[in-house]
C-alpha cells in the first residue's frame, strides 16, 4: 500500500501516507479529552488500521478524506475525542 495524500488546498506537494502521523494525531485527540494513555494508544491503533484498510486500492486521497474517515471511526470509540479531532482546525 503506497497511497499518496494530497494536502488540502492543493498548495503543497502530495506525500506518501504516514500511518504514524495519523496515529499521533488521533492519540493527541484522545489524550486531549483526558483518556488514559493505554486506551488512547489502543483507539488510535484501531482507527489507523481502519484507515489503512480503507486506503487499500486507492492511489491518491486528500488529507480531508483521511480526517473524515478517521473522525467517523473515532466517533464509535470516543465521541468526545472525535469532536476535538474534527473541530481542531475550527477553534480559531
Amino acid at each position, binding site marked *: 500500500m503506497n497511497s499518496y495524500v494530497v494536502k488540502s488546498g492543493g498548495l503543497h506537494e502530495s506525500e506518501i501516507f504516514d500511518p504514524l502521523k495519523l496515529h499521533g494525531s488521533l492519540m493527541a485527540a484522545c489524550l*486531549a*479529552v483526558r483518556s488514559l494513555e493505554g486506551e488512547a494508544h489502543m483507539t488510535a491503533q484501531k482507527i489507523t488500521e481502519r484507515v489503512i484498510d480503507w486506503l487499500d486500492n486507492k492511489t491518491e486521497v486528500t488529507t480531508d478524506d483521511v480526517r473524515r474517515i478517521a473522525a467517523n471511526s473515532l466517533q464509535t470509540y470516543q465521541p468526545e*475525542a472525535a469532536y476535538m479531532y474534527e473541530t481542531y482546525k475550527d*477553534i480559531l
Partner: protein
Amino acid sequence: MINISPILVIAFAGLLHASFQLGVALLTLLSGHSLGSHRSYRKLMRLNFAYLFGASVVTVLLFSGLAYFALLGASSFMELQWLVPALLNMVIGASVIMFYYRRSKGTGLWIPHSMAEYLSKRTQKTDHVGEAFTLGAGSVLAELPFLIGPLSVAVLYTLSIDGSDMQFISVLIYCLIALSPLLIIVSLVGSGKKISKIQRWREDNKLFLQYAAGSGLVILGAFVFVDKFMGGNI
C-alpha cells in the same frame, strides 16, 4: 457618598471585553495541545498561568497607557474625548454582529486564515512559560481592534472618578471582569474538566455571545454619547 454609576459602566465595559473570544480560543488550544502531547499536570498549569499572566500584564499596561494619553489631551479635546469612544463602540458593535465569527461550523473567528494557522502552530509549539506568556500578551494585542472600544470607555470613566483609591479599584474591577473567562478556563482545566466540553459550550453559545457583545457595545456607545457628549440632557 460614592457615585456608583461610573463603576457600573466600567464593569459593563469589562464584561464586553470578556466576551471577546480570541484569548479564550488560544487558551483552549494551548490546553488541548498540552494535554494531547501528554505534558504533566504541573507543566499544563504552568503554561496556562503564564498565558493568563501575559494577558493580564498587557491588559493593565493598555489600560494605563491609554489613561496616560487621555490625560495628556484632557484639557484640549474634552468633548472629542467622549465622542470618539462613543462612536467607536457603536461601529465596533455593528462589526461584531456582522463578522466577529466566521459563518461556518466551529468557533472560527474574524482573523485571516493564514494568521489563524500561524497562531495554531505557534500554540502547538509552545513549551516554555516565556512562550506562553508572550502568547497571552499577543492575544490581547491581536484583539485590540475590538477591545479598544470598551477599554477606552473604561479608561475615561475611571479618570472621571475622584480619588486614586477608587480609580485603582475601577482598574481592578475592569481587569478582573475582562480576564474572568481566562480565569474560568484555567480553573476548569485545572480541575480536570474536558477541553471538548469547554469547546462545545463555546460553539453552542457563539451566536448568543456574538449578538450580546455586539448589541452591548452599541448600547455602551449610545450611553456614553448621551451621558457625556450630550451632557445627560435627553
